[in-house]
C-alpha cells in the first residue's frame, strides 16, 4: 500500500507529541468544539431521545442496506442520473476517471469529501493530467500545503492562522494578513474563478435519500452549492452506508449532525441536490453520476458487532472528546480516517488487522467517544473487539501472549498468586528507592521514564487481614 506510513504507531505518536504547535492548535479547537456540543446538548430538550432515534434509523438502514441501495439506484436512474457501484478504491477511481475523460475535463472543482480522500482520487485524476481544485477552505489550505486532513470535520485543525496566511501569501505573491476576513476573502476570490471555469464538479455525500434519489450536503461555506450547480457535470461519491430511507429520516440526522459536530443548530448551508436538472429548471448540472463505494465496508457489514461502525454519521464528536486525539492529532494515526471511529474502520477498509489493527491501541478505553457519539456507537467496545480479533489472528507479540498465559496460570490459583506477590516484593528491592521504583528495567522503563512506579508493599492486604483475623 503506497499510502501506508513507513513507521509504526508508537513512533508516529512519539513524533506527534513533540509537535507543540500542532498540539496547541488541536487542543484549542477540540476544546471549543466539544464545549459547543455540550452547550447544544443543554439547549436541546430530549437530547438522548434524539440520539436514540438516530441510532434506530441508522441501525434499520444498515440492516437493510441492500434494499435501500437498490431503491436509491432506482430513484437516481428514474431522474436520468447514472449510478455506479465500486467494490474497491481502484474501481472507484477508474469509474470517475472514465467519466471525466469522456467529458474531456481539464479542470475539476471539488467540495469536501472524506470518501474521495479514502480512494485517493485527487492523485489519480492528476496522474491523468486533470487539474483538481479543492474548494472547501480547509481542504484548499491542505491542498496548497500538500497535506491530508487530520480531522473529518475540521480537516486543517492542526494548522493555525499564521501558517495559513503564509501558505496563501505564497500563492498570492503578496502578503495576506493572518486574520480570518483577509484569509477568507483571498480564498473566495481565488476559488470563484474555479467554480466558473470547472468542467466537472465532484462532491461527497452526507446522506443520499433512497426514495427520491437526492443527495444532501452539509457545509458552512456554500462551496458545495457552487460545485453542484455551476459545472455541467456533477459526480457525487458516497460510502455505501451513507443512505437514508426518506426525508423524514434526514430531519433527524440534520438535528444531530451539526449539533454534535460543531454545536451549531444548523450549518450555514444545507444543500439537497436533485440532479440532473430537469427541463424546466434554470440551473444545475446537466449530467449526474453517483458513485457508491464499498472498499471494505461489506466486511464491516458482515459482522453483527462491527456493523455498528457503519451507523456513523461522520460528525466527528468522538474526535473532539478523545483524550488521545487531543494529544497527538489526526496525522499520527496515519490513516485517512483518524480518531476513535478511524481506529475501528481502518483495519476493514485496508483489509489489514496486523498493521492497521494497531490503531486499536491508541486508546485508554476511557469511553468518552461512546458517550459523545451522535448515534450511540459503542466505539470503545469495538476497539476492544479489534484487539480480540488481533489476538485470535495471532497478530499480537509472542511475549505478550506468553505473558498473559503465565499470568493466567499464576492468578488462577490463590497460592501461586500469593507466592508471586511475595516474589515481586523481593525482586523489586534492587530498584526500590523511597517507596518507589524510580527507574525500572524494560518493559517497566516505559512507565518509569515518565513516572515513578509504586513499590509493592512488604505485606499484602490478605496477609495483614489473615494476621489480624487469626
Amino acid at each position, binding site marked *: 500500500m503506497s499510502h501506508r506510513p513507513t513507521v509504526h504507531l508508537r513512533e508516529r505518536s512519539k513524533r506527534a507529541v513533540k509537535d507543540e504547535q500542532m498540539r496547541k492548535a488541536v487542543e484549542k479547537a477540540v476544546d471549543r468544539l466539544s464545549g459547543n456540543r455540550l452547550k447544544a446538548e443543554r439547549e436541546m430538550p430530549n437530547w438522548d431521545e434524539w440520539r436514540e432515534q438516530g441510532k434506530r434509523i441508522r441501525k434499520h438502514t444498515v440492516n437493510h442496506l441492500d434494499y435501500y441501495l437498490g431503491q436509491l439506484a432506482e430513484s437516481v436512474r428514474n431522474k436520468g442520473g447514472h449510478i455506479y457501484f465500486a467494490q474497491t478504491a481502484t474501481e472507484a477511481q477508474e469509474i470517475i476517471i472514465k467519466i471525466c475523460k469522456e467529458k474531456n475535463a481539464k479542470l475539476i472543482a471539488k467540495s469536501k469529501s472524506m470518501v474521495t480522500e479514502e480512494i485517493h482520487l485527487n492523485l489519480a485524476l492528476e496522474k491523468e493530467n486533470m487539474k483538481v481544485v479543492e474548494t472547501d477552505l480547509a481542504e484548499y489550505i491542505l491542498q496548497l500545503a500538500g497535506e491530508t486532513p487530520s480531522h473529518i470535520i475540521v480537516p486543517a485543525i492542526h494548522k493555525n492562522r499564521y501558517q495559513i496566511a503564509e501558505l496563501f501569501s505564497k500563492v498570492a505573491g503578496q502578503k495576506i494578513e493572518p486574520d480570518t476576513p483577509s484569509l477568507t476573502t483571498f480564498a473566495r476570490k481565488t476559488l470563484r474563478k474555479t467554480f466558473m471555469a470547472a468542467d466537472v464538479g465532484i462532491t461527497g455525500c452526507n446522506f443520499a435519500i433512497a426514495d427520491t434519489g437526492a443527495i444532501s450536503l452539509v457545509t458552512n461555506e456554500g462551496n458545495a452549492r457552487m460545485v453542484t450547480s455551476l459545472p455541467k457535470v456533477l459526480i457525487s461519491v458516497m460510502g455505501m452506508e451513507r443512505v437514508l430511507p426518506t426525508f423524514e429520516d434526514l430531519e433527524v440526522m440534520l438535528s444531530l449532525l451539526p449539533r454534535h459536530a460543531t454545536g451549531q443548530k444548523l450549518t450555514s448551508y444545507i444543500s439537497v441536490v436533485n440532479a440532473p436538472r430537469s427541463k424546466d429548471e434554470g440551473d444545475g448540472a446537466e449530467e449526474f453520476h453517483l458513485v457508491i463505494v464499498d472498499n471494505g465496508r461489506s466486511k464491516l457489514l458482515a459482522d453483527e458487532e462491527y456493523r455498528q461502525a457503519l451507523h456513523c454519521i461522520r460528525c466527528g464528536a468522538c474526535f473532539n472528546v478523545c483524550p488521545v486525539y487531543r494529544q497527538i492529532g489526526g496525522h499520527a494515526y496515519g490513516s485517512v480516517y483518524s480518531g476513535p471511529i478511524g481506529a475501528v474502520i481502518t483495519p476493514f477498509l485496508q483489509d489489514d488487522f496486523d498493521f492497521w489493527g494497531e490503531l486499536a491501541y491508541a486508546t485508554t478505553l476511557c469511553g468518552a467517544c461512546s458517550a459523545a457519539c451522535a448515534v450511540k456507537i459503542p466505539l470503545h467496545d469495538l476497539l476492544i473487539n479489534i484487539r480480540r480479533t488481533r489476538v485470535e489472528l495471532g497478530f499480537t507479540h509472542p511475549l505478550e501472549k506468553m505473558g498473559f498465559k503465565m499470568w493466567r496460570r499464576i492468578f488462577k490459583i490463590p497460592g501461586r498468586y500469593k507466592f508471586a506477590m511475595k516474589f515481586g516484593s523481593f525482586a523489586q528491592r534492587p530498584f526500590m528507592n523511597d517507596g518507589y521504583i524510580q527507574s525500572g528495567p524494560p518493559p517497566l522503563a516505559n512507565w518509569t521514564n515518565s513516572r*515513578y512506579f509504586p513499590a509493592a508493599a512488604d505485606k499484602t492486604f490478605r496477609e495483614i487481614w489473615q494476621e489480624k483475623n487469626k
Partner: protein
Amino acid sequence: MKASIFITCICDGIYPRVGEAMVRVLEKQGVELDFPSGQTCCGQPALTSGYWDDAREIAKTLLDSFKDSSCVVTPAGSCLAAIKEFYPVLFEKDKYYYNLSKELIGKIHEFSEFLVKVLQATNVRERYPYRYPYRFPYRVTYHSSCHPRRFLGIDQHMYTLLKNVKDLDFVPLAHEDQCCGFGGTFSVKMPEISEAMVDAKVADILNTGADVVVGTDLSCLMNIDGRLRKQGSKVRVMHIAELLDEGMRM
C-alpha cells in the same frame, strides 16, 4: 450489615494501606467484613488486551470466591466496571457462570457508592458525633476517573462525601472528564501519549493549588501519583477511603 471485601490485586499488592483504611471506615459504620481468600484479580488486563480466554479463567476464580457473599464492596471502580461491563458477555455461552456474573453484579458496590447508597452514611461525623470528629483541613480536588463516571455513573457520590467533611476546602478540577492517560497496558504500550495525557492532568491538578487529589480508582491514582512524584511535587494523592480514615482520626 455484612459485606465481603473484593480487594483487587492492585490494592492487595501495592496499596494494602487503602484496604486497611477502607476496613476501618466501614467497621466504624458497623459493617461486619469478611475476606474470601480464593479471590485474585478481575481479569481486566487480559479483557481489555483482547485475551478473553485467559480472562475467563481468572473471572471464574472471582465468581467462585463471592458465590456465597450477600454483599461485596471494593475500593476500585475500574475493576468493578470490568465485571459489570464484560462478565455477562464473557460468559454468554456458560449458563452457570453467566448466572453467577449477574448475581455478583447485583450485589457488588464500589466503596463510595457503598457508603452513600447502601449504608447512607454520607456523614460519618453525624453517626459518631462525639467519638469520631471527622475533619480534613486541606484543600482537596477530585479526579473522577472514567470508569466510575461513564460506565458506573457513581462519580457523584464523592461530592456527597466530601461535602460532609468539616474544614475541607474543595476545588473543582478543570477538564475533569478527561482521562488521566493510564489505560492499563496503554501506559506502557504508548508511553509517550500516556505521558502527554498525565501531564495535562497533573497541570490541571497543580493549577487548583490543592494539597490533596482524591479519587476512587487506584490505577488512575497510581498514574497521577507517579507523575507528581517524578516532578517532585508535594501534592498528596489519596483514595477516598484514606481521606475518610485520616479524617476520622483528626
